[in-house]
Each structure stands twice: as C-alpha cells, then as structure tokens.
C-alpha cells in the first residue's frame, strides 16, 4: 500500500507544516520538532510538555492548546525525540511555575526525557515528570512496568485542565501519580502497520488472528489468538484491565475506546456498546466515553481500551473547556 508522503525521512516536518496551516492557534518550530500554542498561557500557569515518537497522531501534537498541552515534541516515526528537542520544547513554554513533563513509559522516552530534564534544570528551569505506564500488557508485566497507552490522553486532558485552573507543579505531580494508580489499558491488533522508512508491514497476521497485548508501535503483542466477536474482545479487555486495576465494587469510569488507526469508527462504537455491557454486568458504571482514534500506530487495525476510575475531581477536569485540534469542547465562540 502506498502512502501519502513526500520524502520519507521528512514526514514529520511535512506533517508539522500541514498542522500549522490547518490550526491557526498552533505554531511550530520545525527544526526542533516542537508544536506549541501560538498564544502562550498567561500568568504563572505550570506549562505541560509531552511528546514521543511520531505515528501516534493525534497524540501528542493534536492535544496542544487551551486546557491540555503547552507544547509537544515530535520524534521521528516511532522514535523518541532527542534531549535537545525536548529541552527546546521546555524552553519555549516554561513559566515561573515550572514545567511538567508527561512521559510515556518506553525505554527511549524515559531516557531522553530524563536527560532533557537534567539539562533544563541545569539551565534553571523547574522540571518535574509524570510517567504514564498504564498498559497491563496482556500478560506478565516486565520489570520496566507497563507501557504508556491511552491513559496518556486522559492525563494530558485532566492535568491540562488542572494546570489551567492554577494547580501547582507539586499538585500536578501528585494528581498525575493518582491518575497512574487509577487507570489501566490494554490493546489488541488485527493488522500491523508499515513504518514509512522500512516500507513493509512490521508483521503479518492471518485472516482470523489477533495480537493480544500490543503497544502503540505496530509491534506484535504478548500472544497471538483467534479473533472472536466484538463481545469476546470486549470481555477480554475489560477482564484483563479489571484484574490489574483492583477497582472496588460499583466503581465508575471514564472510558476511552481507542482505534489504532486503521479501524473504522463503526467498529469502535460496536466495541463501546459491548464494553458498556461488560462493565454494567460487573456492577460498574461509566461517567464519560471517548470513542475514536486518539493514540494510534499509524494505520494499524485494532483497538485499545482505557479505564480510569473517576471521581469528582477527574470529572471536573475532564469536563473543563479544551480547545485543541483533536479534543474540543466547552469554549464559547
């Protein structure tokens, strides 16, 4: 399958140009691969910076704007950004209240953000990090813990709203840690995807096979299984997550039914219906749904489920106004 690209090593720059043209509220520093708000946040709001490899769009660049991120740094496709890029992003938006980094738990991201944070702090900027590691991975977690998955979207929204609301850097770190304990994800894949430079699909699946416990890089998962119905898949995801989440009886959730990029919306809503049923059957309830392709693996087919135990605070920040390319609500014209 061909791709809508020009020079395959310049995809990220070309993407950023299109993003800037399409969204007048955003600005981009193409050389340093930073997407940031054109109008910086006012006052001493803590600045939120996230980033990672590209190929997961709309994450993270599509979540830059009022009520979410102040800047996103974009690595090459599936490759963590480098410390200098991250430092540039931090410098672009840092305020006296400090900078919070939201880092997905992948070896590369962890190390590059770690080095960047050290360097920015050496330059006198107050930097703290929250690591998102919500993936239950479909099996036994390795020692590094779960990968960062859909909880990243929730963290960016909720921490973004809290920051907009004046929460301090320490407060945000605490809230971030709290979200970590209350959210888990799991994904399944029904196809791989083609890294634009590699040019061939990362792996091939048989007609009736799925990969269980995938990450967000078009990689194979913890195990291969026979494809079941949407109901079977919903049950698998809900059970696997609840086994790790230790949610009390009658918990209520914010739910992300996420497409990996190549799965049509019609299937995601079918899944939402089945997930709803699975949760209700277990005595739980759902406060909010987000259904769509928000953290993707290029054109991979499949979906992931994220459950975040909700409370008054998270719901308040979830419902708070947001104006970004990918999430937009509550802001008067």
């Amino acid at each position, binding site marked *: 399958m061909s791709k809508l690209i020009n020079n395959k090593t310049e995809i990220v720059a070309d993407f950023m140009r299109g993003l800037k043209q399409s969204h007048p509220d955003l600005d981009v520093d193409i050389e340093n691969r930073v997407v940031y708000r054109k109008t910086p946040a006012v006052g001493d709001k803590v600045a939120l910076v996230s980033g990672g490899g590209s190929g997961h769009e709309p994450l993270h660049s599509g979540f830059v704007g009022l009520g979410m991120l102040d800047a996103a740094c974009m690595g090459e496709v599936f490759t963590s950004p*480098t410390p200098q890029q991250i430092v540039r992003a931090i410098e672009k938006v840092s305020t006296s209240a400090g900078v919070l980094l939201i880092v997905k738990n992948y070896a590369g991201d962890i190390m590059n953000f770690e080095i960047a944070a050290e360097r920015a702090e050496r330059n006198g900027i107050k930097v703290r990090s929250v690591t998102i590691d919500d993936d239950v991975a479909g099996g036994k977690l390795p020692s590094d813990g779960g990968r960062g998955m859909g909880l990243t979207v929730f963290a960016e929204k909720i921490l973004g709203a809290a920051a907009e609301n004046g929460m301090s850097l320490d407060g945000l770190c605490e809230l971030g840690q709290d979200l970590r304990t209350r959210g888990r994800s799991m994904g399944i894949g029904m196809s791989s995807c083609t890294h634009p430079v590699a040019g061939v699909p990362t792996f091939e699946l048989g007609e009736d096979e799925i990969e269980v416990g995938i990450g967000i890089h078009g990689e194979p998962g913890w195990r291969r299984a026979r494809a079941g119905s949407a109901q079977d898949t919903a049950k698998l995801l809900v059970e696997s997550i609840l086994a790790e989440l230790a949610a009390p009886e009658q918990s209520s959730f914010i739910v992300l039914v996420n497409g990996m990029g190549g799965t049509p919306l019609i299937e995601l809503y079918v899944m939402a219906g089945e997930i709803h049923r699975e949760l209700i059957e277990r005595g739980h309830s759902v406060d909010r749904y987000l259904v769509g392709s928000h953290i993707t693996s290029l054109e991979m087919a499949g979906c992931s489920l994220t459950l975040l135990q909700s409370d008054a605070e998270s719901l308040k920040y979830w419902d708070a106004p947001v104006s970004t390319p990918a999430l937009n609500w509550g802001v008067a014209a």
Partner: protein
Amino acid sequence: MNITASELKTWLLQYGQLLIEQTEYLTKLDSAIGDADHGVNMQRGATAMRQTLTETTKTAPSELLEEVAEAVLEGIGGAAGPLYASLFFGMAGAVDGETSVTPQQLGDALQAGVDSLAARGRAERGDKTMFDAAGPAIEAFRQTLDAGDDLNTAIEAAESAANLGRDETAPMQARKGRASYLGPRSVGHIDPGATSVALLFEALTELSGTENS
C-alpha cells in the same frame, strides 16, 4: 604509538560505514521483536557521527568523544540514542585530559563507556540488550591485554566476544526495552541493539596495527 583522536575518528567512521551497510538488516531484526526502526535510527546516527567527525576541530580524544556522544544523542533518538551517547560520554570522561591513549587506557575507557550504557539502561547481562554484546566484548578486550597480548589480538578477541554475545541474545527472553513486552515470544530472535554494538567492535579492527605504525 598511542591511539590519538585521529585513530578514534577512523574507528567511528568505519562504524558508521558498517551501520549504513547493515541498515536494512538491523531494521529487519527490530521488526521481529521491536518497532522496525533500529536500522533507520542507527543510519541517522551514522550520518550525524560522520558529519561531526569530518567537521570537528577537536584533537583531544575526550573532546572528540564528547562531540560524538552529543551527535548520536541528537541524531539517533529512541532508546539507542541515549544508550550510545552514554557509552561515548562514559569513554570521554575516562580519557579526560589525555592527548592520546594506550591500549590499556582505551580498554579502561571502553569499560567506563559500557558501564555508563548499562547504568543508563538499568540493564543487566541476560536482559537481551546491547549490553549482552558490549559486556563480553570489553571483558575480552581487557583480559587479552592483561594476559600480555597486543592490541591486534585484543581487538580480535573483543570482536569475537561481541559477535558471540550478540548471537547468544537469540535464546534469551527480553527483560528490557520493547522486546520485553513480547514475553516468551522474544525468544529465538537476535537483539537488534546487540547487533549494532557488535559492529562497533568490528570497526575496531581499523585500529589494528596502530601500535606498530
């Protein structure tokens, strides 16, 4: 004669050359147990190294290595970027102030580099990472010199140990990095990072004969 910045350049240019030749193979390995980009990442690293090495004005080994570390840190990205950068930063720190280094000092520097890589990655032997090629290679290098053999022999020993370490990652189950999420399915595949590390030691053969020149 000791090893100067100029010899280190030769080594690393050759390393870059090997990376470019092996780009597709490295990516293929990463497709099996990773995200299909290690070749592309290292190719970018090779380009960044080459640019640094051809433009640099540094003549002190430590300054040169620091520039290289910075170049791969910015050039590679992903997991491999900070890991290789740590290796070169570690080496640079160990030869600080020297204008050239003896084979023993090179061994100490490589040891410091490999230690620093392992520390950055929190990697242990058997985790199925770069460290599984780098660890045995530097051990072999130093033991050979300690036994009184010459640089050529030490380089040969390091190269063989790196290759063996690389091959021995195949039966391991990954415990670090992306491959660790495959669990038992990571068994049976050579680790891409260990493979690129083996190229680093293979490139050392460019220094063979330095001592006698």
